[in-house]
């Protein structure tokens, strides 16, 4: 599904062709950022809460080995079957084998970015198993054969008329119907049948409590619960970093999660799954998929603290104006740009550069990940490892040569000012990347160095 043939800049350029649409997208996400601010300000100890959450996650990373063992032992005690998967292929194989053993050919899934990362749907569909994504936004994306563009708001980049058209084409709603309530009711009615008839359900995991072996799934729609409680076989897939030590820590994370994500005081449903109901089977798949490698990168391991709220995306000026799909990675936005290079540095070499390094992401992160520092640090690693784009490497080499030699610095500066003032058309054209969406400035008459030489006497006294 992911199209990696174009980099972020090229995909963003395509997204920017429809200016009205980009402005709408920008505004929709900024509105959510503002709701987040109001929700955060309602809690006087908000900053201490963030700090506490960050420190709990530091403890998790430092003791992950033992917490995983504790969690596994408690799951087993609770009657849940535990599986371990090193990578996407192994994860998918495990899920398939669970379904195959019960001769199940249809599954219903709630939101799980991990299974998106693993391309589970494609894997199962190739093997004759039908999968429906039941989160409304993900369902719309699935109908349209596109990955989610945002981890919390999967189809935030689509206008309601586009969604109406998708429903008309795939589900037979009347042409031209685009009212959100009407479309949502139709999906509710349509998916009810799937919930009632499907024997297997898969959910993601928001938090996994080592102390009790329970895991918490947060939704607003109730789709994870509709699937899970009607299923004979319930499967949960989670990255190994989702562990928290104690149940009391849920109080900290659940106060932060929905406020950071959408400005709600809590998600409508925070479901604590511990034991299968009588007659039901429960499976949990613990997936590494690069997490243990990221844990070994001191500069980047804190990215594993992420609780997937999406606040960094909603606030990011680049995300808001380029759209999630331009990141060509399941997790988009600033957090995606620091997670993706760990998975495949070459393929995702462009992502840490898709940022202004303004730091807004770090300021809203509920677990205080230093996202913008890590973006900057990934740039160093990517250039050193030889994965930076050629134009960037050449540009940086030229810049390094210029800045390291005072003579060439002043010569090039003079030349630049002369060009801007005398032949502006030489830089105001499509061959200059800095001219795109910008006007080049008028060149100053002289540089500071020239002004200083003219106005400052040898004895240090001012001439003027």
């Amino acid at each position, binding site marked *: 599904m992911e199209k990696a043939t174009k980099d972020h800049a090229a995909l963003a350029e395509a997204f920017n062709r429809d200016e009205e649409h980009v402005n709408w997208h920008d505004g929709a996400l900024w509105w959510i950022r503002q709701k987040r601010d109001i929700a955060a300000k309602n809690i006087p100890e908000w900053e201490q809460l963030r700090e506490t959450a960050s420190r709990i996650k530091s403890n998790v990373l*430092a003791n992950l080995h033992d917490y995983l063992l504790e969690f596994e032992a408690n799951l087993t005690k609770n009657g849940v079957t535990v599986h371990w998967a090193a990578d996407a292929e192994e994860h998918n194989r495990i899920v398939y084998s669970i379904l195959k053993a019960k001769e199940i050919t249809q599954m219903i899934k709630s939101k799980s970015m991990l299974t998106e990362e693993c391309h589970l749907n494609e894997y199962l569909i190739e093997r004759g198993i039908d999968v429906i994504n039941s989160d409304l936004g993900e369902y719309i994306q699935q109908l349209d054969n596109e990955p989610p563009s945002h981890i919390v708001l999967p189809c*935030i980049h689509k206008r309601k008329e586009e969604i109406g058209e998708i429903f008309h084409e795939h589900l037979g709603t009347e042409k031209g119907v685009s009212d959100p309530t009407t479309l*949502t009711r139709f999906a509710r009615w349509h998916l009810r049948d799937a919930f009632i008839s499907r024997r297997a359900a898969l959910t993601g995991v928001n938090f996994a409590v080592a102390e009790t072996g329970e895991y918490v799934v947060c939704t607003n729609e109730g789709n994870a619960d509709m699937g899970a409680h009607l299923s004979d076989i319930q499967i949960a897939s989670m990255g190994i970093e989702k562990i928290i030590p104690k149940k009391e820590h849920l*109080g900290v994370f659940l106060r932060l999660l929905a406020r950071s994500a959408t400005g709600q005081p*809590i998600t409508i449903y925070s479901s604590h799954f511990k034991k299968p109901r009588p007659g039901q089977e429960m499976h949990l798949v613990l997936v590494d998929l690069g997490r243990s490698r990221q844990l070994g990168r001191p500069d980047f391991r804190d990215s594993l603290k992420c609780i997937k709220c999406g606040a960094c995306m909603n606030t990011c000026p680049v995300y808001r104006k380029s759209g999630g799909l331009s990141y060509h990675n399941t997790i988009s936005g600033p957090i995606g740009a620091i997670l993706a290079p760990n998975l495949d540095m070459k393929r995702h070499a462009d992502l840490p550069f898709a940022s202004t390094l303004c730091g807004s992401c770090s300021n809203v992160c509920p677990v205080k990940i230093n996202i913008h520092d890590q973006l900057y640090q990934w740039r160093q690693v990517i250039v050193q490892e030889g994965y930076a784009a050629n134009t960037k490497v050449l540009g940086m080499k030229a810049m390094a040569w210029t800045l390291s030699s005072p003579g060439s610095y002043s010569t090039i500066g003079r030349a630049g000012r002369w060009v801007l003032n005398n032949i502006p058309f030489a830089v105001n054209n499509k061959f200059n990347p800095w001219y795109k969406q910008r006007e080049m400035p008028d060149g100053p008459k002289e540089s500071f160095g020239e002004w200083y030489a003219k106005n400052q006497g040898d004895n240090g006294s001012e001439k003027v």
Partner: protein
Amino acid sequence: MSTRESILAAVLKNQPPASPLPDLSFLKGNRQNLVSTYQAVFTSIGGNVFVVDDLAAVNARLLENFDPTKRLVTTLPDLGEPFEVLSKMANPRTFNDVELAVIEAQLAVAENGAVWLPEHRMGQRIIPYICQHLAVVVRAETIVPTLHEAYAQIGPGDYGFGAFIGGPSKTADIEQALVMGAHGPITMTVFILQ
């Protein structure tokens, strides 16, 4: 080496040096005006809330709004007619026609409007999700300020499943337009028993 062993070995090798767990004792909510705070928050989420004296008042209020010829179920035998006391043994799929479910929460959280429902209070796990409308009875004295007090009361819990539920099912996936009743209940009403 099995996958399990190799993941655990990689984690052990790569995990950073010890970092102590932070103290949580400073996290305490305000115990003033819990009922009125709860009412304000739950209403702002899109829920309905009534303060009542007894289950008879709950019954009367619900029958003003719901058709008694439809399927109305409860876990509370004292709620009276025409409510069907739901079977804990029935196949969960048989509840797809439930119009209204009435259950009682263990506690509620003033700061976020959520009620805590361990599975024995749901009757069946599917009940608060599959019904078209949900009503939850909460005793006023069980309302706590924040999730911290809630988890302190819940403790480890002897449930197989439990949930915080804070309002009607909702989605804003289509152009951020809020729609109640995505997959779960279209409305949620809380009755605070004084």
